[in-house]
């Protein structure tokens, strides 16, 4: 069972992480290629605090706070640059995070931090806890969608200039999206640190950012269910793919490409197309 429990924990953390990006990119339309930095901020904050003797459950809100605060700072960048420029700026933020952590001896530098004290929960309880957090994030996402904030977000995603002439303070809403999304990423990071008990800068680099973005896009950008499913599947795909061993990244990359090439709306669109073919046939 341990193996399944471990996989389920990984899945839950990935779902949480992907949903956090979905808030920013899917809901509010602000693309980010550096989201793993916030996973890292959360993981390092929680890891360092745990090593300093702070109880696990207390590390979570603190990790969220730190990640969210940094998220707001990066959010300011989104006020200055847009679209492709924003994509590359956030990518830069990711590299900057890894670059800075690497040089901090206090953070373990290149060596990372290991032997992070245990939460005291059994593996099963920790898994259930992680699943509960992911479920909470999914519920929060679903709620945000339904409340006024979600309406403003999707309007900003479509046409922020028009939102402005509707008297809405676009910058504050964007910053809120960044704060919420990055705080959730921080929570995912805290769980990640506790799950693996070992963190190093390379785990929060460009590849991780790309992976989480592809989870969101493959799931269907903005779709809570789609992103949840795709994050769950993509996160354990490499483990399932052990069977095809050396070909697994080839298949992964290929699938990513084929998905975009033949179903640009991701899984959500694919499912819709299968179940409501007539709606698409018209086009």
């Amino acid at each position, binding site marked *: *069972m*341990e*193996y399944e429990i*471990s*996989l389920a924990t*990984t899945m839950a953390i990935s779902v949480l992480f992907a949903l956090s990006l979905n808030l920013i990119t899917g809901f509010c339309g602000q693309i980010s290629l550096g989201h793993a930095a916030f996973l890292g901020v959360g993981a390092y904050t929680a890891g360092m605090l745990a090593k300093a003797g702070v109880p696990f459950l207390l590390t979570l809100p603190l990790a969220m706070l730190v990640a969210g605060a940094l998220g707001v700072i990066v959010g300011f960048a989104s006020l200055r640059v847009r679209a492709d420029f924003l994509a590359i700026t956030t990518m830069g933020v990711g590299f900057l995070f890894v670059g800075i952590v*690497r040089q901090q001896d206090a953070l373990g*530098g*290149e*060596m*990372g931090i*290991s*032997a992070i004290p245990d939460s005291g929960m059994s593996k099963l309880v920790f898994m259930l806890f992680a699943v509960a957090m992911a479920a909470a994030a999914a519920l929060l996402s679903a709620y945000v969608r339904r409340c006024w904030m979600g309406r403003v977000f999707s309007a900003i995603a479509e046409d922020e200039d028009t939102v402005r002439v509707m008297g809405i303070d676009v910058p504050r809403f964007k910053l809120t999206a960044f704060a919420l999304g990055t705080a959730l990423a921080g929570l995912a990071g805290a769980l990640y640190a506790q*799950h*693996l*008990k*070992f*963190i*190093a800068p*390379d*785990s929060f680099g460009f590849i991780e950012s790309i992976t989480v973005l592809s989870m969101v896009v493959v799931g269907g950008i903005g779709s809570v269910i789609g992103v949840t499913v795709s994050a769950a599947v993509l996160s*354990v795909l*490499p*483990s399932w793919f*052990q*069977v*095809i*061993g*050396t*070909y*697994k*990244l080839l298949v992964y990359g290929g699938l990513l490409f084929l998905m975009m090439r033949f179903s640009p709306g991701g899984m959500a669109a694919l499912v819709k197309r299968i179940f409501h073919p007539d709606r698409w046939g018209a086009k």
Partner: protein
Amino acid sequence: MNHKKLAVAVTAALAMQFGVPAWAEVKIGINVPLTGFAAADGKSALDGAKLAVADANAKGGINGEKIELVIYDDQASPKEAAPAATKLIEKDKVVAGVSGSYSASTRAAAPLFQAAKVPYVVAYSIHPDVTLAGNYVFRTATMGEVQGRAGAKLSSTLGKKNVVLITLKNDFGQALAAGYKEAAPKFGVKIINEYEYGIRDRQFGALISKVKSDNPELIYASGYYFTAGPLVNQLRAAGITVPVIGQEGYDSEKFIEIAGAASEGTLVTTSLDRDSDSPVTQAFLKEFRAATNAGADMVAASTFTATSIAIEGLKKTGGKGGEALRKAIETGTFSTPIGKLTFNDLHEVNKDVQVQIVKGKAFHRHSVISDPVLLAPPTKAK
């Protein structure tokens, strides 16, 4: 090769699915980076491990039972290594584990093996935390700090005082640099400057210009053959002729191939002595070439060694894992291609450091650093 790998993996997966009884074969698990940036070392490691298994099986296996190697790719990433290790322990029910991977992934896997009480023999990852995971974890490699200290001693042996450090910015490079810096004062070696570079860097022009202006007597540069090859080549092209000391990361024929003529004279502190009289070493070198059509490198030798140690231990316990195997490895003395090995109380190896020099496009023995005090690995006490 790949088909064979595929077949093994498929068999493993099928075995898992259909619950083939565990006693049919003795299973040893290995995590190696088969994809991603470390794939080249992963391949060497896997070749070494497979050779060890094939050797043992040819000699009748363990009590007549065949040894099966269960292979999982960990991409040298902790995130992939953790589920791989759990799967080895839980699904494949391996009696022993081998790490043919880097420190990051090994550090994530080691506590899991420890918790499951499955002995885990680590081949070439050098981070101190690995063996701190607990008493089921063993390491055959000389730790980074130890090798760094050996490097400092070698520098002074060569009569060089002013040294520039070029450090690979990862745990391997930093551990080496730390050891070197720790020991340097003892030998009157002065570090006049230190530079760092990333594992993806291949162009060192700017750094070399600065090194040149430092005018050192010796360069201690950490790295792997794929970074060290271009680095040494570019150092020589820039007209820097002072000796370069590298470490076991250099220890691959690929280094000589990449650096070309510039590699001549490069010194390397490592575990594998190609000119060793030891029949075990010579047999390994020969068999490896026969099996893979390529020369063995340090990674292959270390992983071969780690796998062999697990197998030797299993022979003693009659295929039983757990505590029996742990004790067998703990107390055993092993004749391996990298020398006679015993483990200390922290399960680190006590061994000499081999110094190899590139001469005539091949590694040859330069000297052996034998200094039990200087080269003492950390113990539980420390």
